[in-house]
């Protein structure tokens, strides 16, 4: 066997090892999180952890209910804000904007996607917190410190914009002009064409973009942690402080080493994050793949 063949075999094997590593990394993470959270699952029942509000690490009570509610509210609200705005934005970029404006806006959106989350957090702290405290909350007749669920949702929605917009723009562009022309030629207005042709033809992409945006919002840690206020209670209004799973992990990290059960509880929270994001991303990926296969016009 000559040198080149040996090099070929070794190189191929190295590539194989890297590939195997990538495919087991996922299971490795799942296994590590599972095995570490067994400790808390042995002593506390899973319903007790998920649906109790009693949080006292030193006594061994880890009720995650307020945190889970907080996560759901923050994620849901951010998507309610982000989805219509980003959809309309994508429609405008593809269908209505003059070419010049389109060329300016698209790099803007790429840049928005590249801004680090901690910078989003800092900007929310500098701009949104005073805005919510002094303008928006008094508007609704509520007193607020500005560090609240609403502020966190606002900044999360800004972080979700670029994901949904860029995916939708890509999919709107891929719709054949003939489809739109058919609709326009029978007298539909441009918006009606968008509503009945563009949205329908790219429905799978829109759904999976929303699911991926959900994954981003659900797992976002730092920006949320910086403005949500960090109190594990069920917020009675949107202007009360709250807590999300990811932000709790980040703020409790320094304490977590001291009490094994606390550590285990935090890892259980990481496991919830992991599994939920996994389910939503799988759904998103599958919808997108099926759509790509089916609608290959």
């Amino acid at each position, binding site marked *: 066997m000559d040198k*080149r*063949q040996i*090099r*070929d075999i070794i*190189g*191929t094997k*190295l*590539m*194989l*090892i*890297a*590939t195997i*590593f*990538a*495919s087991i*990394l*996922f299971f490795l993470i799942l296994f590590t*999180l599972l095995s*570490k959270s067994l400790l808390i699952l042995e002593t506390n029942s899973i319903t007790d952890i998920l649906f109790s509000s009693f949080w006292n690490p030193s006594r061994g009570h880890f009720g995650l209910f307020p945190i889970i509610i907080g996560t759901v509210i923050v994620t849901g609200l951010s998507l309610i804000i982000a989805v*219509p*705005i*980003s959809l*309309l*934005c994508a429609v*405008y*970029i593809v269908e*209505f904007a003059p070419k010049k404006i389109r060329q300016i806006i698209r790099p803007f959106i790429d840049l*928005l996607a*590249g*801004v*680090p989350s*901690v*910078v989003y*957090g*800092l*900007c929310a*702290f500098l*701009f949104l917190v005073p805005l919510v405290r002094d303008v928006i909350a008094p508007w609704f007749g509520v007193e607020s410190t500005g560090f609240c669920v609403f502020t966190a949702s606002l900044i999360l929605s*800004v972080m979700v*914009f670029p994901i949904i917009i860029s995916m939708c723009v890509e999919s709107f562009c891929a719709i054949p002009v003939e489809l739109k022309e058919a609709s326009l030629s029978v007298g539909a*207005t441009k*918006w*009606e064409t968008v509503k009945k042709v563009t949205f329908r033809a790219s429905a799978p992409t829109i759904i999976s973009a929303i699911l*991926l945006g959900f*994954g981003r919002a659900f*797992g*976002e*840690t*730092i920006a949320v942690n910086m403005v949500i206020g960090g109190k594990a209670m069920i917020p009675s209004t949107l202007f009360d402080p709250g807590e999300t799973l*990811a932000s709790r*992990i*980040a703020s409790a990290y320094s304490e977590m080493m001291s009490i094994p059960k606390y550590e285990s509880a935090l*890892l259980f929270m*990481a496991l919830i*994050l*992991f599994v939920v*994001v996994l389910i*939503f*991303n799988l759904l998103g*990926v599958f919808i997108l793949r099926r759509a790509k296969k089916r609608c290959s016009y």
Partner: protein
Amino acid sequence: MNWRNFEESLFKILMLISIIIVVSSLLIIVGLIVINGASSLSIDMITQSSSGGYYLGKGGGILNAILGSLFLALPATGLAYLLGIGIALYLQRDFTYPGISGFIRLSLDILWGIPSIVYGVFCIMIMIAVGFGTSLLAGILALTFLELPIITRYMDESIKTVPYELKEGSYSLGSTKFETAVKVVRRQAMPGILAGVLLGLGRGIGDAASILFTAGFTDSIPSSVFDSTAALPTMIYHLYASPIPSVRSKAYAAAFILLVIVLLISIISRVLLRKSGRYVIK
């Protein structure tokens, strides 16, 4: 005016409003960081390390965070590139079955979506299990895992577009599969590979959640891979809410530099894409 025309103009206005919201949010972010950051930036700020502990520590600059970020992100990107190029090349039809490569692509897509805090928690568990704690090494590891799916998927998409005729030409001259993959396919896919690496670097250098536990936070420049280190994102995270203005200004300066680095990476990737595209056979 009938309802249909009214609807049309209503939604046009709504679209304009939403585009203004999106564009102005970016402008506000850049504006806030530039105004706050530029005023707190000075020569001392970027040439001195911090002193006197975090949160309340006055004096010093952010040199340790800048270097820490580079020490974390550059090796992580290098490692992720080495792993990723192997994986991306291996996913070609020449090496493996479409079913297997489909499964690996799916698992990479899933890894891409996993929140970075989960990577952080996972890596610190691994590091504690092998006997190291918070360290530069743990941070590098976490960032490598974070960047790996991004870099690999980008390279993979670019490698997919390499025409099969090109590989056939290489095979017909007697080259092995490995030689073809490394010398022909890699060069042809270079623009996509570069874009992936730079995107991964940008993501890695800006991520705070994954290095929060793993790299820790100190005032000094790390002297070995087992020291903990500060980084720009973690410095912003720890200092932004400090009651002392001079400490807060460190966070602003760090945010400014971080934003400049991220923007630079984005611009460089555009320029490189254009340049490296010249050597691609079309």
